[in-house]
Each structure stands twice: as structure tokens, then as C-alpha cells.
């Protein structure tokens, strides 16, 4: 097992994108052809098939890439404690044993909660290396007063959260006000200091894939360490076409600046098969290096259970049931 993913090295996701000045030429020359993007993702499943032990290995890897999430109005401290427990021990050890994998090497990428639940999560994870991510800056709509949004991020950082998922103002994108978007994300960046920052684009509310691409570029220029599709609260959340557009933007940014920005699809990814598709897309478009928690996360709550069922099938040869796996 590589050391970078083994337990003990965690909470490593500090800021790594220094940002750059706003390049409006890159924004205005951005093109996305929807039909061509759809064709690419439509044939993806047919082009790469991951079977047998390869599939088991990929699914285990998928677990390490999950931001295990609860973002509900009825979240309570006990609920979050349960989530953290599951995050630290995501798969039954008998399953891992029969797959020949050391239990210590498998835990999720992070837990992801509201600011109000951060203290519970931090307390629950104790001395473990499980990163705690919070959604911030007026999540999910991002429409509270600007200084309060910045303040929320600062507070999360002060609490000791490892990662802050900020939301952008969709109105800046829809109005084509790239300068305003850049300034907003830069301000959040400043508020987060050296803490790892993911920028949530809420792609389901941006209208077009071109807007998704442009907003991706602006957020990366403003210093986002990750770009993330959705809050999970929009009516359309992560989709493969959106993912492809964002991954290509990340690639372009990487080639232009040398900075490797991460990607987090969130919302609606609940099946192991979907997770494999996203990972395949990442490997095909960006390469193996991006399939690490530093550069890729799934924002998901129920995905883990489906993966556990598939892993048990690998271990036993029998199809599994959800109730056989511990709740998060």
C-alpha cells in the first residue's frame, strides 16, 4: 500500500494552489460543444470495463476518495459521531481480510458537515487523521451577506477544520461578471488562509456547460484547491458531461500553470458502478495521479453502502444486502 494513502498521513490537504491573475482571454476563448461532450461520456462505459479483482481494487480506492457527507437540517451531534465512526471503519474487517487488504489502509477521504456540526466532528475524530471538511460561505445558496460568508469560512478554519467547501455566487456567472467572481473566490481564499479550499460551482444552476468551464477557470485562477460540481441541493447535481468539462478545465489549467487542481463531483452518486465511471473518466482525461484524495473526492452519503455490497460480493461470490453493512 502506498504511504500517501495509508492511515497516519492524513489531514495533509493544505492549500496548494497559489492562484494567478484573472486571465479574461482564456475565459472568452473557452468553447464547449455540448453534443460532442455528451458523445464522449455516452461511450465511456463501453470503452472501459473494470472486472474481477481490478474492480475490487478500484472500489476500495473509491472509498478512500469519498467525502462521507451529511448535510441535513436535522443533523445532530450523535448523527455526526456515527458518521465519523463509519468514516474511520468503512468496511467490515472480515471482507477486507478475505480481499487481502489491511483494514488500516481503508478509510474515507474526509467527513463533510455543516459548520454547526464541525465541533462534533472534530471531537469525534479525536486523534485520528480523518480530515473534517465543512461547507461554508452561506451554503448552499451563497446569498447571505458577503462579510458573513467570509466570516463563516474564517470561523471554520479557527475551529481547526481541515477543508472548507465554499459556494460561489451563481449570479456572477450568469451575468458574465468574471471579475466579481474572481474577487469573491479570492476573498474566500484569503479567509481560508492555508486551509484546503474547494469551490462549489453549483453547475446545475449555471445554465450551460460553457459557463461551467468558464467558472471552473475563474475559480482555479482565484486559488481554489478543488473545484466541486454541486452542493447536492440543486435539482441537477453531478453529471458526467459536467465532470468532463471540469476535468478538461483542470487539465488546461495544469498545462498553463503547473498547478494540479482537484475535482469533486457531488450529489447523486450513489452506486458503485457510477463511481467507477467517474474514476475511469478521471483516469482517461487526467491520469492515474488524479485518483488520490489530494486531487479527487466524491461528495456522497449513500455510495459507500453500495460499494460495501459489491466488495462483499467479491469476497463471497454471493450478492449482498444493504443491512449487512454498518450504517454511517
Amino acid at each position, binding site marked *: *500500500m*502506498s504511504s500517501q494513502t495509508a492511515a497516519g498521513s492524513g489531514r495533509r490537504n493544505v492549500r496548494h494552489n497559489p492562484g494567478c491573475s484573472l486571465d479574461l482571454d482564456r475565459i472568452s476563448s473557452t*468553447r*464547449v*460543444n*455540448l*453534443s*460532442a*461532450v*455528451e*458523445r*464522449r461520456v455516452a*461511450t465511456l462505459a*463501453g*470503452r*472501459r*470495463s*473494470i*472486472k*474481477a*479483482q*481490478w474492480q*475490487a*481494487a*478500484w472500489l*476500495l*480506492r473509491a472509498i478512500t476518495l469519498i467525502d462521507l457527507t451529511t448535510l441535513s437540517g436535522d443533523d445532530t451531534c450523535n448523527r455526526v459521531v456515527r458518521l465519523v465512526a463509519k468514516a474511520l471503519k468503512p468496511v467490515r474487517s472480515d471482507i477486507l481480510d478475505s*480481499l*487481502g*487488504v*489491511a483494514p488500516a*489502509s481503508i478509510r474515507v477521504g474526509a467527513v463533510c458537515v455543516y459548520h454547526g456540526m464541525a465541533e462534533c466532528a472534530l471531537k469525534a475524530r479525536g486523534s485520528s487523521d480523518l480530515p473534517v471538511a465543512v461547507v461554508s460561505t452561506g451554503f448552499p445558496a451563497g446569498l447571505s451577506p458577503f462579510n458573513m460568508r467570509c466570516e463563516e469560512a474564517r470561523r471554520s478554519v479557527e475551529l481547526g477544520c481541515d477543508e472548507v467547501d465554499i459556494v460561489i455566487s451563481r449570479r456572477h456567472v450568469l451575468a458574465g461578471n468574471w471579475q466579481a467572481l474572481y474577487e469573491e473566490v479570492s476573498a474566500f481564499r484569503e479567509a481560508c488562509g492555508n486551509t484546503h479550499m474547494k469551490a462549489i460551482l453549483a453547475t446545475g444552476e449555471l*445554465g*450551460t*456547460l*460553457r459557463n461551467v468551464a468558464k467558472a471552473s477557470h475563474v475559480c482555479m485562477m482565484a486559488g481554489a484547491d478543488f473545484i466541486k460540481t454541486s452542493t447536492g441541493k440543486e435539482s441537477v447535481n453531478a453529471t458526467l458531461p459536467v465532470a468532463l468539462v471540469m476535468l*478538461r478545465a483542470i487539465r488546461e489549467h495544469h498545462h498553463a500553470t503547473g498547478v494540479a487542481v482537484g475535482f469533486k463531483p457531488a450529489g447523486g452518486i450513489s452506486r458503485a458502478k457510477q463511481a467507477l465511471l467517474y*474514476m475511469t473518466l478521471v*483516469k*482517461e482525461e487526467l491520469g*492515474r495521479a488524479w*485518483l488520490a484524495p489530494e486531487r479527487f473526492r466524491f461528495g456522497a452519503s449513500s455510495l459507500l453502502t453500495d460499494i460495501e455490497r459489491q466488495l462483499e460480493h467479491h469476497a463471497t461470490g454471493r450478492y449482498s444486502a444493504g443491512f449487512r453493512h454498518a450504517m454511517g
Partner: protein
Amino acid sequence: MSIDVLFDSLEFGPAPESRTVADKWLQSHKHRFGHFVDGRFGKLDDEQGFESTNPATGAVLATLAQGTRKDVDDAVTVAREAFPNWRDAGGPARARHLYAIARAIQKHSRLFAVVETLDNGKPIRESRDIDIPLAARHFYYHAGIAQLVDSSFAEHEPVGVCGQIIPWNFPLLMLAWKLAPALATGNTVVLKPAEFTSLSALLFAEIVADIGLPNGVVNIVTGDGATGEHLVRHEGVDKIAFTGSTEVGRRIRQLTAGSGKSLTLELGGKSPYIVFDDADLDSAVEGLVDAIWFNQGQVCCAGSRLLVQESVAGEMHDRIRRRMDKLRIGDPMDKSIDLGAIVHPVQLRRISELVERGLSEGGHMYQRSTSMPADGCYYPPSLIAGVSPSSILMQEEIFGPVLVSTTFRTPAEAVELANNTRYGLAASVWSENINLALDVAPKLACGVVWINSTNLFDAAAGFGGRRESGFGREGGWEGVTAYLKLKGSGVPRERAKGRQPPSAATPRYGLSTIDRTPKLLIGGRQTRPDSGYSIVVRDPLGNRLSEVGRGNRKDIRNAVECASNASEWRRTSASLRAQILYYIAENLNARAREFTETIVNQTGVSETDAGREVEASMDRLFHYAAWADKFDGHVHGVPIRGVAMAMKEPVGIVGVFCPDEFPLLGLVSTLAPLVAMGNTCVLVPSMAAPLTATDLYQVLQTSDVPPGVVNIVTGYRRELVETVAGHDNIEAIWYFGSPRHIQKVEYASAGNLKRTWAVAGNKIDWLSPSRGQGREFLRNATEIKNIWIPYGEV
């Protein structure tokens, strides 16, 4: 490999498709197949078998029969016997058979896919997700055509027995493209699959026999080119449909010349893939995977010539190279493979040799950096940049996974480079600017254009080329007519009555009092013949009427030059062309009496008949003026979010030999549809009565016909036929006249594979409003270009 190692490496791993059922099928035939004729597999004699191998491994899959002349003869005889019942069964009955075939392909889809991949070497993903579903779709679509053909083509009937020869790159799909329209329209078929890849056709034969297709309707004779040649030469075959190389297509054109066989050819290509600076570059790069690395580049319409705008060329090439590094090459039965095996060592050698030869002429080659399978027949995906248009790599079809690239500066230069080829099959245009894309698409000399996409196929949209990529369309309504003919055509008709035989009496009208010197009409001017000789024109009694110029090779050359310079005609509005045709009719009307006299003088027909001919000629001009802005294209219902526009375009420069039967009506009947559709033409009038043509010069000149649109060269047909048919800048030839020249016309047309429409002049009822004019003429005056336009923004 252990899971914890894979957890780090995250390799894709093997994902092999099972071949068990396919092997069982081969075993059930003891790996030996005779021809499939009259609903049964014949015996396979040991001495005449040949082996079909798996190109990925070299292993022998089966031994097949090499079709002899006798085998072909037997199959044609059986198909001929089956024809009347199949034709008379009617469209709806045939529709049920086609529907059953479509269902059968779907029910056995995985077996077909596995057999195809074993035999051909293409990735199982492609046979499973593309070839087989498209083949099934083709039969479904044509079940619908069968249902509708009786009412939609009431004037037509099937051609008869069709000989169909298909290539090895899409074995079952090409079988479907050939069989479905032929069967739907009531023809019976003898099909020869390519010798490298016959197995899916034999599996198909077995399955259609099971579903109760009448015996003899579909016959399959296996074998190599010699078998194909027996089929092409066979006198009992009414039509040949061929898909394959331009070289073989040309040979087939020559072999069938003068035989009366109808012919469609779908040949090679060197299709441009044009990327403008405002394209979605990543999507354009991904498109290349489907353009040139689809089926190992062994695709007639592969986007094999990358033309990229200078300002983005460096970026584009970088992105292509990075994408190439992700391609996976290997066992075609692996579901995660992008490129499988090249069909045969012969083809692999051809690719290697061409690339080697081409690289000596310049260019930088990049090949994918990861490893290749050690054994089997493989060629790495390759990009050769910096290739000049003069390089053999830009000119010749490589038919392998090799992309060649050059740059352009402006849209006009892109079009020029794109059209700088003898081929004309397909093109891709990448730009996010709709003005640019839709401006460029019609200017490309080809049959299919994909905007922001590539290699899209559907049964509802016609496919086929221009120039040396062949002629005829497959798919859509436009593909149906290739398997139909007008009822009663091909049989001489008795319609020359209505005309009196030349009278023994002296013609009623005397000579003009002032001598006239008819010349040639070239480029809008009346010019003297290059030869300096004239031909005497006499009346039926032998009296000298006048003299006309004796046109020669050089006059034809000059006329074609002028027709070429007048090509702006194709871009004039249809309403303007209509106006001009009306104007010709108006001016003809003003001189109707004079034309009547000239016809009587030259032919000796009665004044009434001559007057009727002049009247009919004016009607004909009105007819095509009416059609000029109404012979619309289609928007096909293809399964994408977008449209496939079937645009009708002029053929280009058309050479015409006018019929002898009616000096004026024959001339007008050919000239008018060509002019109406935007063609320019070089006409050789009937020498039975050439003064009518020369009298028409003034009418044309006073009717605003732009110079060069209509050129008329009088002269001896025997001296001009081969010059016109052999001229590489003439794109089609219409020949109406003595059958003895038809062979020459069709044979010489093989040079640049020009479309030919050659019929004995007396087989067309020129006076008839249903047969002497209309859609048949308009179809021959146009080419159909399918422009695929996917759209969508949200």
C-alpha cells in the same frame, strides 16, 4: 495480481469477452462452409477451400469455398428464379421478412459481434456497440421502406437480380447496407463477402434461413476477387453494388460498361477533418479517436487528413499526442481496447510501406508511447504532422490508424485544401461558429459532412461520395432509388409514332436567302471550330441545307474550361435560374415559327409535328423553371439531437449527348434540368438535325444565360464521345443515342469515375410529360449531400 497491488496501480485489467458460443457455432459447421445458395449451404470440396483467420492471433477459424464461375452461375440462376415471386409478394409482405431479420440480428447480437471481432480483428466494443446495432437498424428502417415502396414509388419496379460485393472493414454492416434496400424494393441478391471476413455473412445466412426467408432471395457466394469478377461479368445480373477500393471500383466500371447493368460504387476516401480556431479543441481531439482510430482507421470515410488552423495547430497537436498516449491497443476481444488488430498481414504491410515511403517526403511522426502486443497483426496509432499537400501521405488512402496533418490560414484555404483530392466521400468541420460551419459545409466536395462530430451513421441518412469515392447513396430515401427502375424502362417503346416518316416530298420551306455560318457556342460566344472543318447538313432527301462546325478534342477542352469558369452558377439563387428558364421559353416562343421550319427542313416531319415539338419544348422549359426552386432536400429523422440535412447540390460540369429523336425537345429536355439545378454543361447536339441547336445560340444569348453555363459543340459523336467521357473535369455524362457508343461512354468514364446516365435515345418517351421529364432527370442533375448538425447548449 493481488488486490492491494492493484489498489495502487489502478490498472484497467483484462476484460475478455467470451468466445464459447461462437466456437460452438463454428464447430457445428466443422469449421467448413460451402456457399449459401437456394436456402442451403453447399458442399465444400477440399481442393477449392481457403482459410479465414483471426488476425489477432493468426489462428484459422474456418475453411471457406472459393466461388467459381459455375458457383456464381448457379447462384444467379437461383436468384433469377426467386425474383418474380419475391417482387410480386408486395412491399408489406417483404416488410415482415425484413422486420424478422432485424429482430433476428438483435436476438443473436452478441454472437454476431463475437464472430465479427474474431474474424476481422476490430474491438469487441465496436462490433457490439456500433456494427451490429447499426445493421439491425438498417433492416428495421428498410422494413419501413418495404411497407411504403409500393405507394411511394408506384411508377417504379425492382431492378432484378443484384450482385453485391462488400468489403472486410464492416462485414455485417455492409451486408446490411446492401441487402436491406435491395430486398425491401423486391430484388433478389447474390452477395459476395470479402474473403478475409465472410463468417458473419454465413452466420446471417443461417439465421435468415431459420426465419423463413424464401429460398433464393439471398444467396451468398464466398471467394476472392476472381469470384467477384465472375459476378460482375455475369449476364444474368441486372445491377452491381460494390463497396471497396477505388481501384477495384474503376475496374468494375470498365467491366460493366455497355452491359446495361445498373451500378453503384462506394469507394475510398481521404476525408478532411477541419479544425477552426474557434472549435472546442478537446472535443475535436476526442472526435479524432472516432475518426481515424475507429476500426484501426480501416474506414472509407475516416477523417484521415487533419487540416487545422495555424493559430491553434501547436496546441491541437499537443493535445492529440496526449490523447494518443491513453489509447489501448491489444486483443480485440478485450472490452477495454481502443484499437484491435489490422485485418490481415497484407494490409499491415501496405500501411507500413506507405508510411515509410511518405515519411521520406517529409513530416514528423509521433506514435503512441505505450507498448504494443508482441504478436498478431497490429499497427500503432500514428500522427504525422507537417505534411505538405503534395506528399503521398496527403494524397493516398492509407486505410490504417495514421493521421496526417497540415495547417491552413483562412476558411477559404481550408476549403481549398479539403477539396484538393481526387476523393470526395466525407468531411468533418469543427467550429463553434454556425456561420462558418454552415458556410464551409456546402463548399466541400463530398457526400457527407459532419459538423462538430464525425463518423455518424444512420439508416435514415444517405451515405456515399463524389468524385473517385464513387456514386450512388446508401440509406435514406435517396438510397432506395438505386434499387428501382421506372416501369417498362429498358424495353424499347413504340412511341416514335406521332411522327411521320420523312416525306418524299420536297420540304416545304426553302433555304434562308442569306447564307449563315453556324459555329460553336463556347463561353457565351459563337466561336469557330478549332479543326477549321465543317460538316454538311442535309435534309432527308439529301439536299444541302447548311454546314455546322466539326468540333474536336480542343473544342471540348475549351468548352469544359468555360463551363468550369462559370461554376458561380451553382451559387445563384434557384429563383434566378427559374427566371432565366422562363425567359428562354419566352424568347423561343417569339421564334417558334422559325424553329418549326428548321425542324421540318432537317427532319421532314410534318409542320404539325414540328410545331408540337416546339410547343413541348416551351412546356419543358416551364416545367424545369417550376422545379428550379422546388426540388427540395430533406431533413432526415436521425437519432441525434440535431438534424441531418440532405441537401441537393448540382453535380457540377455535365457532358451531354442529346438524343436524335427530337432535335429541339431532346436538347431542351437535357439542358433545362441541368441548368435548373445549377449545373454547367457541354452539350453535343444530335447531328441528325444540328441546325436547331445552332439556332438556339441566339435564344440562349438573349435570355441572360451567363456565359459558359451552356456550351454547345457540334461534331461527330464518334470523335467526341471518348474525349467527353474521358475528361477528368467533367463530373457526369448523359448520353442518349445509339447503343453502340454506350460501352465507350461508360468505359471511358471509369477514369475519374464520373456518374453516367447512358440510355438508347429511343427508350425515352421524350414527348411524355411523365417519362420525358421530371424527377428522374432532376435526380441525375443533382447529388445529395448529407450534412449532420448536432446541436444543443443546455
